[in-house]
């Protein structure tokens, strides 16, 4: 092929994927590495890339210590109960103690944060959320990243990390291709911060046909955070911890502002409160430590999100659906009505389009809610991602190996969806994690840890051949058939995605099986994924755009395999409402109050699973 090879050499900090995590990394790296070479590689355009591309109407992680609102440990306890105990509290504490400084800078850069006219503090939506006019959140943080970076490579899809040929288990850069020109890009770098996204579209969505793009997490979140890290041999954690969202039906518009600020609430088709009716039975499954409505009422400790999902799912299965969001009261107030609409326009325009198309006026009609298909990610209310080191002054020995947010591969760092065990980071927390990773990456270089990296021409050539193989394969076999998409030698990326979604749905607890799986199903699923991997070697790409989709699919496939392995390993139902292990329907603290950690051997493809201890913060302010 006539594609050029473009080599960018002598990079110090390479940022792969510049959403909120990646922009935070690029920006901060310049301060600690004023003479260092900082480069961004992003498959879209950093002005509108990542999960925050369309904007946000709230910042969901802000302590407000300057207003005396919350301390970092309060946030840790909140995220811990929401995730049924399974979090990395060192990483959460660290993120929470820094996150306010990121938010205060956003305000200085021009991000419109709403203020409470009475107190002068930021306008709270709930205890943790502050309200913003965030349509331009992403362009604003992109400006910051551009100020710091030496070079920004937009439209370069990173497919693989480069590994050091001189020293085992050390990163040496990344490779990818330009999705417009088709050129091959080689980035040789001392450190890499992976800021790539989590995974939408690996479980079959509820929508069909054209609507398949209407997913809760962005369709361009292709699980590349996991595809890149797993392929490099990095250890992963909590990959079983997929998330299911209770959202407005079809449009998946956000409900946070509705519940917290507009004080709307849910009811079944008979107009009854249903949630609490499921709690006694549910308490027997998960134990009083995790579900204690009385204690929650007394202390404002939240009911875990998954358990509220469980009630919704079961109420619908009992024949009392649909579940409605009661908006008719709040929307009588014109001010709240306007907020309700602004909330969608700021971050999920499609929900406004849907209500306009179906004449749903929430002032006179209570809209329907539903539970989504599962998503695999690590920055919203779930914690999939890489097993990373924490900060020296907080982390116990099992959680610390030298550099904050460094994965188990030397010189390879993560931020946002890439870091495991840190749910409830959201946009501001992901940006903060990027900053922490960037500082640590600069320290790693300054400590001389990146000396003597060697990348062989063989590795560069091998990756190149691998990247373009789908196009070669297509060219070879296309003319064996007259026309059309049916070919005995290849499948196209869309066909592959359909297969992945169907098997993840049916064997790994998707929406059509009511989020149910078990050991037998998972074994079959893994077998099918293995065979699918053979077909992925024969995927055909007609053009460079399809090549992008082919590599997104490969990343999604690898992420799915990891999810399947982790789900198989954890023999309990830790998060009813996210998924169920039908053969182990109870939460089992005796055996499974641990974090799951996996490593896939890049040579053999074999997975090693282990349990890592779960450390908790104990001390003042304990609310139970």
């Amino acid at each position: 092929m006539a594609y050029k090879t473009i080599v960018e050499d002598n990079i110090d900090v390479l940022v792969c994927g510049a959403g909120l995590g990646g922009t935070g990394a690029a920006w901060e790296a310049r301060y600690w590495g004023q003479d260092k070479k900082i480069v961004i590689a992003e498959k879209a355009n950093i002005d509108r890339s990542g999960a925050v591309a369309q904007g946000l109407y709230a910042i969901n992680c802000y302590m407000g210590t300057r207003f005396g609102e919350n301390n970092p440990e309060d946030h840790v306890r909140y995220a811990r109960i929401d995730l049924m105990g399974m979090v990395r509290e060192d990483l959460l504490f660290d993120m929470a103690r820094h996150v306010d400084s990121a938010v205060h800078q956003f305000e200085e850069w021009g991000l419109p944060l709403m203020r409470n006219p009475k107190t002068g503090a930021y306008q709270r939506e709930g205890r943790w959320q502050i309200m913003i006019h965030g349509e331009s959140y992403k362009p604003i943080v992109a400006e910051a990243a551009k100020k710091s970076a030496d070079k920004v490579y937009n439209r370069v899809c990173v497919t693989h990390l480069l590994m050091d040929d001189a020293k085992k288990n050390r990163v040496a850069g990344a490779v990818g291709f330009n999705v417009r020109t088709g050129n091959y890009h080689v980035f040789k770098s001392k450190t890499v911060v992976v800021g790539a996204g989590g995974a939408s579209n690996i479980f079959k969505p509820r929508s069909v046909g054209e609507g398949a793009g209407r997913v809760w997490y962005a369709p361009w979140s292709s699980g590349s955070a996991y595809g890149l890290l797993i392929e490099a041999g990095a250890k992963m954690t909590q990959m079983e911890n997929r998330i299911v969202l209770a959202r407005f039906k079809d449009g998946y518009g956000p409900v946070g502002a509705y519940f917290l600020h507009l004080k709307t609430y849910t009811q079944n088709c008979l107009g009854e409160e249903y949630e609490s009716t499921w709690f006694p039975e549910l308490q027997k499954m998960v134990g009083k430590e995790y579900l204690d409505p009385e204690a929650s009422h007394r202390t404002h400790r939240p009911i875990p999100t998954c358990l509220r999902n469980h009630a919704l799912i079961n109420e619908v299965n009992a024949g009392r659906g649909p579940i409605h969001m009661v908006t008719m009261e709040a929307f009588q107030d014109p001010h709240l009505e306007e907020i309700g609409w602004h909330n969608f326009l700021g971050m999920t325009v499609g929900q406004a389009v849907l209500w306009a198309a179906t004449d749903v006026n929430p002032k006179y009609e209570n809209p329907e809610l539903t539970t989504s298909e599962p998503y695999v990610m690590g920055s919203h209310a779930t914690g999939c991602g890489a097993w990373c080191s924490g900060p020296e002054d907080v982390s116990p020995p099992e959680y610390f190996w030298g550099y904050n947010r460094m994965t188990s591969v030397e010189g390879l760092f993560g931020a946002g969806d890439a870091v495991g065990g840190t749910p409830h980071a959201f946009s501001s927390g992901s940006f903060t994690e990027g900053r922490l990773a960037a500082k640590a990456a600069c320290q790693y270089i300054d400590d001389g840890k990146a000396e003597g990296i060697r990348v062989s021409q063989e590795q560069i050539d091998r990756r190149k051949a691998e990247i373009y193989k789908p196009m070669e394969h297509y060219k070879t076999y296309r003319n064996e058939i007259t026309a059309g998409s049916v070919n005995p030698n290849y499948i196209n990326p869309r066909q592959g995605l359909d297969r992945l979604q169907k098997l993840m749905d049916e064997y790994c607890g998707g929406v059509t099986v009511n989020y149910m799986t078990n050991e037998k199903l998972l074994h079959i699923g893994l077998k099918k994924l293995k065979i699918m991997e053979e077909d992925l070697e024969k995927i055909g790409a007609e053009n460079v755009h399809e090549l992008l989709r082919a590599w997104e699919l490969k990343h999604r496939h690898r992420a799915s395999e990891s999810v399947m392995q982790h789900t198989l390993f954890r023999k309990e139902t830790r998060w009813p409402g996210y998924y169920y292990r039908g053969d182990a329907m109870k939460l089992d603290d005796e055996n499974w109050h641990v974090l799951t950690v996996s490593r896939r051997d890049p040579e053999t493809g074999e997975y090693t699973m282990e349990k890592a201890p779960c450390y908790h913060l104990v001390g003042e302010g304990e609310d139970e």
Partner: protein
Amino acid sequence: MPTFVYMTRCDGCGHCVDICPSDIMHIDKTTRRAYNIEPNMCWECYSCVKACPHHAIDVRGYADFAPLGHSVRVIRDEEKGVIAWRIKFRNGEKDMNLLAPITTKPWGKHIPQLADAPAPDKKQRDSQLLFNEPKYIRMDEGGLHTLESNGLKMKEGVYY
């Protein structure tokens, strides 16, 4: 919801191609105008709609659940720092205009150039602090929270 492009308004400038996060706005080789090549990978994020200088791009709700006849239009004005929306219902009963700020400052002017900031000293490098910290955490003289300062420790097992 999936975007589409009006033939008479598009001049093929490619702003939408440049901005689309999903890489689905492409220029048609015959008409030399933009179009959505993959509607089922469209997130209705409106990035292209906002970027189009000719307002040539619009959105028609997903065919699998949205009936025809609605409209959600937008004008994003970077100079004025505002975004204006108009939502029209299918049955014509609701027609809303909504305005929101998108920034409070001139673009990029208030973001510091960190290459020119005073270089951090060794003490700062060895500390847990980030740029502008601890000042920016609480906007006062308070320090960074640590386990010690907050009377906490990390302990293995279940303690809550």
